[in-house]
C-alpha cells in the first residue's frame, strides 16, 4: 500500500515538473500584464503555489 502511494506522489511531482516545461504546450506572446510583469510570469507563480500545496500534503500524509 505504501509503495502504491509512493507512486502517486512521484506522479504528482513529475506532473508539476512537466507543467514547468511550458514550451511543450504553449507559446507565450511577449507583453506585460499585472504590475507590468511579463504575461507568462503568473503561470509560473501559480505553478509554484501548486507545488507548495502538493508538497505540504506530501509532508503531512506521506513523509515519515
Amino acid at each position: 500500500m505504501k509503495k502504491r502511494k509512493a507512486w502517486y506522489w512521484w506522479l504528482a511531482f513529475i506532473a508539476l515538473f512537466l507543467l514547468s516545461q511550458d514550451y511543450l504546450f504553449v507559446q507565450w506572446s511577449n507583453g506585460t500584464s499585472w504590475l507590468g510583469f511579463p504575461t507568462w510570469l503568473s503561470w509560473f507563480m501559480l505553478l509554484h503555489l501548486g507545488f507548495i500545496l502538493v508538497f505540504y500534503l506530501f509532508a503531512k500524509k506521506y513523509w515519515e
Partner: protein
Amino acid sequence: MVYAILLIYIAVVFLGSLRGAKQDATTPEGYFLANRSLGTLTLFFTILATNFSAFYFLGFAGEGYRVGYTYYVVMALGTGFAAFSFFLLGTKIWRLGKEHGHITPGELIYQRTGSNVLRWLYALVMILFTFPYLSLQIVGAGYILETITQQQIPYLWGATFLTLFTIAYVWIGGMRSVAKTDLKQGLLAIGLMLAAVLVITNSLGGLTNANEQVFALEPSLFNREGAGDKYPPQKWFSILIFWLFCIPMFPQIFMRFYVAKDLDKLKKSALLYGGIPLIISLFPVIIGVLGHLSFPGLEGKAADQILPMMLVEHSSEWFAALVLTGALAAFMSTLDSQLLALSTIVTRDFVLPFRKGLALSQQVKIGRICVILFAIIGLGIAARPFDTIFDMGKLAFSGLSMLFPVTLAVLYWKVVSPAWAVVAIIIGEVLLLAFYYEWLPNQLLLGFDAYLFAMIVVFIILGLGAVWGKPQKRGREIE
C-alpha cells in the same frame, strides 16, 4: 551615518556570537552542529541564509539585468523544487547522522561504504568546489563596501575587513552563533530587500510604469526564453532540475540536515524553503531589470553591481547604507557557514582518521585554524574574480552536483562499489571541466547543460559498479 549603521550591525552580530560561545563551543557536536538541536525557524533561516548570499543580492540582480524576468522563475521555482531533496536525502541523512553520530558528509559516506578513499575524494570535491562560491561572498562584500562608502573603502580593503570579522565570530561561537546570526541576518535581508524594491519602484513612478518603460526599451527582457534566448527548452529543462541536485550537496546545507532537532523540524523547514523563494527571488530580479532605466548598457561583470548602484541612485544615503548592510549580512551568513563546514570536514575527515583519540578541544582548535586558512584562500580568489558572480556560482554548483548520484546511491542502493564510485566522481568532474573550458565541443550536449550529461555518466558508472564491482562494507563507527 554610513559608518554608524555598519558599526551598529557589527556590534549586534558580535554580541550574538559571544552568547553562542557560552553555550556550545566546548564539544565538536556543540561547536559544529549546535548539539543537533535547532528548531524550525532557526533551521530554516540558517539554510536560507546560507543559500541566499552574494549570489542572491548581486548575482540575481546582475542576471536579472542581463537576462530579464525569466531568471526569477529559474531561481524561484528551481530552488522551490530543491525542497524535495530535504525528503529524498535530508530525512535519511538526518536519521543516520543521529544514529551514528555523523558530523560531516564524509563520515556518512565512510560509514555506509567502509571506504576512506571515497570519503576523502568526496570531501575534497566538496572543499574545492565550495571555494568559488565562498569567494563570491568576499567579492560581494568588497563591491558593497566600496559603493556604500563611495570608494572611501577600496574593494580589497572592504573584502579583507569583512573576512576578518567573519573569522572572528565563527572562531568564537561555532554553529550555534552562526545559526542564530543567520536567523537575524536572514530576517534583516528579506525585510530590507522588500523595502529597497518599494523605494526604487516608487522613485521610478511605480512598478507598473517602470516595467512598461523597460518593456518599451528592452522587450527581450520580458521573453520567457530570456534576453539573447538564454533559456531555450533544453537549457530550461536542465536548469529547473539543477538546484535539486546541487543545493543539498553544498557542504553547509548537507550538514544542516544533521542539526535538525527532529524530523518534524526538518519537514517544516523544507516547506518554508520550498515556498519562500516564490516571493523573495523576485525582489533583486525586479531591481536588476529596472536597472536598464537608470544604467543602460552595462555588460558582463559590470552588471553585478546594479543593485548597489540603483540604491545609491534612487534612495537616500542612510537608506542605501541600511539595505547594503543587509546585503553584507547575507554574504557573511553564507561565508560563516561555508567556513565552518569546510573546517569541520578537514578536521573530521582528514585529521581525525590519522590522530585517533584526538581530544575534543583539539578538534575544535584545528577547526578554528582551518577557518582562518580557508578565509585567506577565499580572499585570495576574491582579489581577482575570474568571472561574473552568476558564472562563478554556476561552476561551483555544477562541481558539487556530481556528488549527488553517489549520495543517492549510498543512501538507497543495496550495492555500491566504492572503487567504481571513486571513478564515477573523477570522470564526472573531468567531463564537467572539459565542457567548461571547452576542451570538448559543447555541440555534444545537444543544448543541455554539461552537468546533466556528466551526471548521467556518473549514474551509469555507479550502476555498472553495482553489477560488476566489489560491493561495499560498512565502516566502523565514527569516534
